[in-house]
């Protein structure tokens, strides 16, 4: 029973706990009783915290087993970025009620870990000489942090789009009933038949947009640093800071999409739905950078380890 096996067992344990968390949150999400104490959600929160601790321990132990930081191949990288995404959720939940997002966070984390364990898993390998350097700690850590933050922000953007659609439908329903209700909630006296939602209310689209923006800002700063640190390391390792290698180019594409998102947020007419779509496109490009380029592209960067 070596450290590598213990690490894997902890990750399996985390997956089980995330699944339980997802189920608890799903029960809360679809609960008919909207006003009582949300016991299922509270259980979900505790279980998610437990799952996070198991996940974190498993990741740390994997690093110990390999005698280096736990992000030198795709399996380890997935462990790390998903732990960052969950940590972001838990951290932001302090002082805010984000229990309604719990079902999505848990579900997506189980999915990521499932892919990691089933497809990406490799035994602990020695570190290739080119990665055996302090830049691994600097460059890849910020990439992982950025990725975890972007993932969480994109979840909020997706939910924002869902909410925008729902809010538009509600407004249309209200106005079609011939009332004088205005979008800002002021307006005249209208008795509107409230449509009971099957699901719990997500935060408002405006709140989700704000949240997504602030998390994306931090992620974007980290990603910019990742690009710069990567260029510095590339100069030490390969003799040139930038060579339009597929991974380098795709990382710039990710940066560009998120840059467009930030511009959109500052442009009249492009906030709201268009900005949210750009955020989602940014994440898609990030996942192409991660899952597709690592496997299929002829790149100096192919450290999938597979």
């Amino acid at each position, binding site marked *: 029973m070596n450290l590598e096996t213990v690490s894997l067992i902890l990750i399996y344990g985390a997956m089980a706990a995330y699944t339980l968390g997802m189920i608890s949150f799903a029960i809360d999400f679809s609960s008919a009783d909207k006003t009582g104490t949300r016991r299922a959600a509270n259980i979900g929160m505790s279980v998610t915290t437990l799952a996070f601790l198991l996940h974190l321990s498993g990741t740390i132990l994997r690093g110990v087993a390999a005698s280096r930081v736990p992000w030198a191949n795709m399996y380890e990288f997935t462990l790390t970025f998903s732990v960052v995404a969950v940590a972001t959720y838990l951290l932001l939940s302090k002082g805010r009620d984000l229990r309604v997002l719990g079902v999505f966070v848990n579900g997506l984390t189980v999915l990521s870990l499932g892919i990691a364990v089933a497809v990406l898993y490799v035994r602990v*390998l*020695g*570190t*290739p*000489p*080119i990665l*055996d*350097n302090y*830049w691994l700690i600097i460059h890849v850590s910020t990439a992982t942090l950025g990725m975890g933050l972007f993932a969480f922000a994109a979840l909020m953007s997706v939910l924002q789009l869902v909410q925008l659609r729902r809010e538009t439908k509600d407004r249309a329903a209200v106005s079609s009933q011939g009332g004088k209700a205005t979008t800002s909630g002021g307006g005249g006296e209208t008795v509107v038949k409230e449509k009971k939602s099957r699901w719990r209310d997500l935060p408002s689209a405006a709140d989700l947009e*704000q949240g997504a*923006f602030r998390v994306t*800002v931090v992620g*974007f*700063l980290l990603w*910019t*640093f990742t690009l*710069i640190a990567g*260029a*510095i*390391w590339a*100069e*030490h*390792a*390969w*003799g*040139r*800071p*930038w*060579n*339009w*290698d*597929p*991974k380098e*180019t*795709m990382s*710039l*594409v990710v940066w*560009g*999409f998120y*840059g*467009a998102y*930030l*511009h*959109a947020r*500052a*442009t009249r*007419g*492009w*906030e709201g739905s268009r900005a949210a779509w750009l955020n989602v496109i940014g994440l898609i*490009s990030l996942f192409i950078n991660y899952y*597709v*380029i690592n496997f299929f*592209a*002829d790149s100096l960067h192919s450290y999938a380890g597979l």
Partner: protein
Amino acid sequence: METIRTERDIRAGSPRGIGLTGWLRWGWRQLTSMRNAIIMLLLLVIALLPASILPQKRQDPVLADEWIEDNGIWGTILDALGFFNILTAPWFAAIYILLFISLVGCIVPRSFSLVRDWRAGPGRVPVRLTRYDSYDSVETDLPEQEVWGRVEKSLRRYRTVRRDGGISAERGYLREAGNLIFHMSLLGLLIVFGLSQAVSYRGQAIIVEDETFANSVLTYDTFNRGVLVDEESLPPYSVTLNEMTPQFFDDGTPSAFSADVTITRPDGQAQEIIRPNEPLDIDGTNVYLSGNGYAPKIRVIDAAGNVALNDYVVLPDITETYVSTGVIKVPDVTEGEQLGFQATLFPTAQEQDGVIVSINPDALNPVLVTTTWVGDLGLDDGVPQNVYFLDTEKMELITESVGDVDVGALTTLRMGDEAEIPGGHGTIEFVELARFAALDMRYDPTLGWMLAFAVLALGGLATSLLMPSRRLWVRYEDGTVHAAAIGRKGDTGLSSDVSSTLALKEDS
């Protein structure tokens, strides 16, 4: 009241156009608008997607050509449109040139605006503060001057101006300055990159152990230089490879590489070790260890009994397990036709199911397997040839029958073995085995500038995203202090700024 009109207003007939200058102004406005900046940025980014996914000719020309051939009509269309060399495609250049013109056209006026705003300072206090969401007020019995003193102390981070019976405060100059610095640094980076292409050079030298490489354009294996590089200006040094030491884990994957070299310069010699991630700096040129492999010493004695070749031959095609392939050219035969061999080295050879494989990347049991070609190597044509590629156009493969198929006759040599060359053309001997190191040497004087602009860009970006931009006003009227603040959309710190201002703490 009478409305006074001039001739210009009373114009009958069709509406006035805006003229050429009008249209140019409209075009410029459009180009520098945020909306079009987003669109052009998205176009640039989308154009980079195939640059990442399709093999590019500058990166891997062989793979790119393969792709074009394998994909028939699509390959030809995409190639004609420049999709296999996107970075030099004219349409790509158009996108980024327009984008940067838009950037400059937006940044320069904004810089002037920032200077103007800085000079003008915060504006007047609005008459009705109550219409703002963040409005709050507090009663106090402090004297007016005391109130102002405490308010100004709490508004330390702002730029304050006392006028009209109130205080006008503004912050956000740093935010805008950071924004401008970030965008200008991007422009700086673009310029520096372009310059770097012109003034830098890069070459690769493959050096076998105990051999020396002298730094001159002709001795490199590959050499690329920018248009402004003077080939005579290469600094005079030579590199002798003393020993190339790769180390491996138990499972055969590499664990470390180190190249022990001696650098000889006009003013003396020095012994250094080059490792991955630890390049050597020789008078501004960086030397990187980019690869290593095997170079067996081959002795060929021709049919007349004379030594036709007695040298180390670099086998540059290396698999992950260090099975190395290359060619051996023997042009200097004293009689008969020239010889060429395709050679594969198995560092730790073992026979499995009748096939030779290598079970370890270290040279524990080296075996060389060759096939023989006889004829004209094509070296006397006067056309330069790739050292590592055997041109078999005027050569014939010596074959043997295996079943009813004719395959190339294999000669298998362990280290120290000598064998007859099939066809009676002499003997070939695998004398001993050495390693080679592939050293990349690169000179780029713009690296410091790149780093400076990159750091400046990051700093500017962080400032522009994290520092708030707000206006705050305070008014004192008969014992009541009123305050309100406005900020950018989504700024959640407004009410806390207002309340901390109204707290009127003595030492905030």
